[in-house]
């Protein structure tokens, strides 16, 4: 019997069991086969000295744009999953706003085939709710599930009408998959470039009111109540949305939500402070200080289930233009862990366990995919973090083709050190090795 990997003396965090202790961790094949205080060195095993490091269940980013098929100049499965591995993610769920849209099983198959050829981490396709993401009729969601999709979303837009959202939630109860909703009432947000408020008044932009998000959040929660369907609200950004989610959870509805690192950390002050830097343009827009505080509170108290990056890589040509003409979005995979560690874990706002829950266990549960736990017999998807390593965010180091980040130059402490997928080391100290 050949053991392939022994991870020694790391601080092992497993939110599912509450475990937080220094352990050795033995990996055989693609499974964790042993966890103990001291495991004797098996013959022929690779030894990883993780002393001083934090060993987490593999991080899962449940909202990324890999841009393939159709937008290979922005990102592709190769570059996007390299970015994921470099950022400490062992799996990503990719959104269907591709060209063509991922709205049928053949596109799901082709993405999965490309992922098996070119991918560096696990790829979970999120299929479109409606054909062509056009919001007119339901896509063949059952067929897409059979092909390997894990959830459904018309991301980029909300599901167009209350009727279709009702149907989607209701129909999917037969399959158990969630709808991942991008909550935005376009009739209120149309033409808006940033959050509505004093800053939009000063900057001279039409503002996007918080209510554009909250109206759809409220609608969808009502429909989750009506149908018993699984609703996941992605990139929530307002205090009001969280209040609605809080009440929905108290009612016992199957409603979950995620927040992005940028909505946890940045405010709309940044648009003016940066002199209209288009890297501050994102949808939903950066909100106010009060909203940011509410996001942190929601993450602490569990109203927010997960952290997802909404990794939205763009080509420089899509950003080096006037603000209105710039594409919205932030390339987030390679900054998320550093930001969450430096700004939330180190100051003690959230624990290591809460971080692992929000970035691994909760996404695994919501998507119904393996991972999220560290125990004997579990899949060997593991993220090891160096909590003391300091670095500056520099887009030149990005594996992603998307260099669009408002965090350029930020000094952060704590970064991903090793990414292990299915027992195989994919990233070691910033370098993609497999």
């Amino acid at each position, binding site marked *: 019997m050949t053991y392939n990997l022994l991870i020694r003396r790391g601080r092992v965090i497993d939110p599912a069991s509450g475990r937080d202790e220094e352990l050795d961790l033995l990996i055989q094949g693609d499974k964790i086969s042993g966890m103990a205080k001291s495991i004797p060195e098996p013959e022929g095993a690779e030894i990883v000295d993780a002393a001083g490091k934090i060993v987490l269940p593999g991080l899962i980013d449940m909202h990324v744009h890999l841009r393939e098929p159709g937008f290979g100049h922005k990102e592709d499965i190769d570059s996007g999953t390299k970015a994921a591995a470099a950022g400490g993610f062992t799996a990503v769920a990719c959104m269907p706003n591709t060209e063509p849209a991922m709205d049928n099983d053949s596109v799901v198959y082709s993405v999965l085939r490309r992922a098996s050829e070119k991918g560096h981490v696990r790829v979970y396709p999120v299929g479109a709710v409606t054909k062509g993401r056009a919001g007119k009729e339901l896509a063949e969601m059952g067929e897409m599930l059979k092909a390997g999709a894990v959830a459904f979303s018309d991301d980029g837009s909300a599901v167009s009408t209350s009727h279709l959202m009702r149907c989607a939630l209701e129909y999917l109860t037969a399959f158990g998959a969630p709808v991942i909703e991008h909550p935005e009432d376009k009739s209120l947000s149309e*033409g808006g*470039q940033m959050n*509505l*408020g*004093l*800053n*939009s*008044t*000063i*900057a*001279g*932009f*039409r*503002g996007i009111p918080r209510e554009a998000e909250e109206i759809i959040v409220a609608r969808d929660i009502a429909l989750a109540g009506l149908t018993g369907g699984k609703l996941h609200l992605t990139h929530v950004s307002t205090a009001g949305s969280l209040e609605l989610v809080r009440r929905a959870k108290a009612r016992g509805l199957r409603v979950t939500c995620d927040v992005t690192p940028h909505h946890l950390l940045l405010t709309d002050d940044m648009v003016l402070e940066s*002199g*209209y830097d*288009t890297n501050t343009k994102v949808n939903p827009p950066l909100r106010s200080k009060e909203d940011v505080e509410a996001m942190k509170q929601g993450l602490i108290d569990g109203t927010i289930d997960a952290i997802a990056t909404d990794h939205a890589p763009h080509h420089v*040509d899509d950003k*080096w*233009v*006037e*603000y*209105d*003409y710039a594409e919205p979005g932030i390339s987030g995979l390679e900054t998320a862990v550093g930001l969450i560690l430096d700004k939330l874990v180190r100051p003690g706002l959230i624990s290591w366990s809460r971080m692992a829950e929000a970035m691994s266990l909760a996404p695994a549960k919501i998507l119904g995919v393996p991972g999220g736990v560290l125990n004997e017999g579990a899949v060997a998807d593991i993220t090891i973090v160096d909590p003391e390593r300091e670095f500056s965010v520099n887009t030149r180091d990005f594996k992603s083709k998307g260099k669009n980040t408002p965090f350029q130059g930020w000094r952060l402490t704590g970064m991903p050190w090793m990414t292990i997928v299915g027992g195989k080391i994919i990233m070691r100290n910033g370098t993609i090795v497999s």
Partner: protein
Amino acid sequence: MTLRGKDLLSLREMSPEDIESVLSTARSLKEILSRPLKKVPTLRGKVVCTLFYEASTRTRASFELAAKYMSADTVSLQPSGSSVQKGETLSDTARNLEVMGTDVVVMRHPVSGACHFLSKVLDIPVINAGDGMHEHPTQGLLDIFTILEYKSRIRGLKVAILGDILHSRVARSDIFGLTKMGAHVTVAGPPTLLPPGLEDLGVKVCRRVEEALEGADVVYVLRLQLERQTKGLFPSKREYHDFFGLNRERLKYAKEDALVMHPGPMNRGVEITTDVADSPRAAILDQVVSGVAVRMAVLYLILGGETSDL
């Protein structure tokens, strides 16, 4: 402090000292406009480029005349097609102009912040001639200049701004410039055309036009930007005129010697009646004269002149 080589992007970001230096320079230069031979050699050999992505009559003419009166050479471009229509990018167009030897670019653009973007693209100074709904700083400066000519002070004056504040770059520049100089600014207009947060900028927001006009030293009427209206912000021109337009009756709420101003072009009979616009209290054409003087001052200072040299 000097404006030499600097951008002029907004009055919000402009120091009171720089504003004063433009105003005093404009006072010296204005005299040139009344000479029989309107030409001084001050900017000989300098090239001023006006780059207008949006239609304009007076602002472009005003900048070009200002440059020509000081012997600068001018080149004007009006690239067709904005937004989606994929022409040459702003960055490429502007860098071409820069390498051809342009000393300053004066840009008007439909997108807020476009001049800030341009200033990152170019090493030469950028003057904002109106960007989207953001600012129109030389308009703000010429408005202050005009008020000063009539009232000799800004501090303590009550200025009522009426109309479509939401879409108005003129309103923003006036608000920032006038409050910086110590004026009390009140605004009134259809609530759908008043953006949030104005109180935080030191502006008093009134529900009724009459309330805003009460005791005003200056009444500033904004153009109702019909072309910018998203449907549904107000029901009709007629109703706008009836409730929010400036007419002789409403003007009685202001001080007897109140100055009436408008950035032009006017929609007569909509935001302002003809009798008010053409009354002796209207300083609307004076604003246009001030505009040339202020733009001469701005070009002069940015292209390297000192107030003390005049």
